[in-house]
């Protein structure tokens, strides 16, 4: 609908600070009808315009099962995100999307699901987690393993508490370095694998986080018997158009913004320059 590069105007409906440098923005398209017909899959991303400062890709952090707002969690890293963090509720931004392939939620039905997130990698998983939790009985076991550098760096702190209290999933949280008052696990994310019982044969594993964390986690999972097609992650590249035209995100003849950003590990391994 509309031209490929034309954003929709959206308003910031609410904001929540997750950590000192990370904030979740809940957006509503200014046109109600357009908002109601806007649909996306977890794992997809949107191109967010901060008018006057450009456009950048951010993953959807909310689930399509909760369509009141479109959420994205953004860390302050550069000019555009810094300006985004100065905006207030009611301010207008641009939204273009959804972009990318998203997680294949259908393929996960009936399976056991393992979510492994590190730091700012939890946001893309969160959308899928809520999607799954909102249709809980269509999926098998759910395990969520999450870690951040310090307790302050954990995102979605309230939701972590909510998930911990649910009886229909297992949540393990860890930090690389504790702080006073922290009584939970201390150690990198892979240390959580020994604290739970993994079932590689029936489980799809979704892994998101910093590249180095993904590397170690995936290695570990493969060693424990997960099939390469069952380990799923998201790839990041510099992006501009988000619609497979500008060529910034190409690896070989594969476009991360179109063929990804969600890939299983077999596909990732086969992606060669």
């Amino acid at each position, binding site marked *: 609908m509309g031209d*490929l590069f034309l954003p929709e105007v959206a308003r910031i409906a609410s904001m929540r600070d997750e950590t000192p440098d990370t904030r979740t923005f809940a957006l509503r398209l200014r046109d109600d009808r357009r908002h109601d017909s806007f649909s996306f899959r977890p794992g997809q991303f949107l191109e967010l315009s901060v008018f006057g400062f450009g456009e950048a890709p951010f993953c959807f952090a909310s689930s399509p099962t909760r369509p009141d707002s479109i959420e994205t969690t953004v860390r302050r890293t550069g000019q555009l995100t810094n300006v985004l963090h100065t905006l207030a509720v009611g301010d207008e931004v641009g939204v273009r999307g959804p972009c990318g392939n998203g997680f294949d939620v259908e393929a996960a039905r009936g399976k056991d699901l393992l979510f492994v997130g590190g730091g700012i990698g939890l946001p893309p998983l969160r959308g899928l987690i809520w999607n799954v939790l909102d249709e809980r009985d269509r999926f098998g076991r759910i395990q969520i393993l999450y870690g951040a550098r310090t307790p302050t760096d954990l995102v979605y702190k309230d939701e972590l508490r909510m998930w911990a209290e649910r009886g229909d999933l297992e949540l393990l949280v860890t930090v690389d370095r504790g702080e006073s008052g922290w009584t939970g696990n201390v150690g990198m994310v892979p240390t959580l694998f020994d604290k739970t019982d993994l079932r590689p044969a029936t489980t799809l594993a979704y892994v998101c986080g910093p590249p180095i964390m993904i590397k170690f986690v995936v290695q570990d999972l493969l060693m424990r018997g997960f099939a390469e097609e069952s380990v799923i992650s998201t790839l990041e590249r510099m992006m501009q158009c988000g619609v497979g035209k500008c060529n910034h995100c190409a690896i070989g003849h594969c476009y991360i913004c179109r063929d990804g950003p969600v890939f299983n590990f077999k596909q990732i391994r086969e992606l060669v320059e």
Partner: protein
Amino acid sequence: MRPANDVHGRDPGASRLLAKSDLVSWIRRLMDDAEVIAPATGAGGDLMFAPVSDPEAVWLGPGNPLQPPKQYVLPQTDPIVRIERNGGGVQVSSISDERTRVIFGMRSCDARGMAYLRRMQATDLPDDAYLRRADRVTVVTLACTTPCTLGFCVCCDAGPFARDGHDVQLVDLGDRFLAEGATERGRAMVAEAPFRPATQVDVVKRDELEREAERHFGDESAHLGAAMRRISTRRVAEELWEAMSPWCFECGGCNFICPTCYCFSVKDRCQDHGWERCRTWDSCQYSAFTLEASGHNPRERRKDRIKRRFFHKVSAQYYQRDGAVGCVGCGRCVQTCLGTTDMPAVVAAIRKGVWHG
């Protein structure tokens, strides 16, 4: 009667004639309804595609402007979205460029370039604004009967006579042009006066000229096929790309001058009351092309960027995806490269497995 060697499946009845003496008046007629772009000698003695003001100055001799005509469907700075901030919030709208244009005197290689670009913008998620603009451009090519100095279009199946991307092809038969309508619009264009039907003699002459032109290329200078096989099966040694890298000066010229390159970035340009979001030409040879916000750069080393370029241009994977190779053999990169890493040189190096600088 269909000529025996009609390999293009054309309908001889669609071949028309234009007397050379009628050319100028025909161009003038085109100028009534459209902006006519054609090669002409501009400042500095440089041949350039430019809006025609004097039809007599249109250049129909040998040689192709260094700047390809892609700038008329994909300008170096191309406004695509208008963002206006007034009292009542932000308004966004698409910017359309729907100037009616005829690009006259284009060569076969560039016509292939236009077709390629169109395909890129039309596939997968179509860029409707681009397509609307391209649809308003009519292409009249002039067939090449002798090779240009640096060109190697036969290696890319993009010449010397046009294959696609054109509405009308003119072939110089001496005192007249044979005019072939390749599209519905093109056929309509040549259906009326001053065009008249061609004869069998004209068509035979045309075919002879095409064969002669192909023969003139002789043993062509760039064997893309062999290079394609090696690139696609990843049998090009890393050391070869490394050996090339001091011979590239990262000017980006190869991308900007190439009729099939279209990489871009998107930036907001400040205006009164808002911004214009523009698509701007970018180059995969620039180090920042893949630089991520975190500071990580997957193509930090120049050799990886050179490798990337040639994979995009010449691999079987892309050929399969796009239906065409990413090179039209125009030879412009040979002229414009600040270093020595132009297409023929790199293709030769890949074939031979050695780089000579």
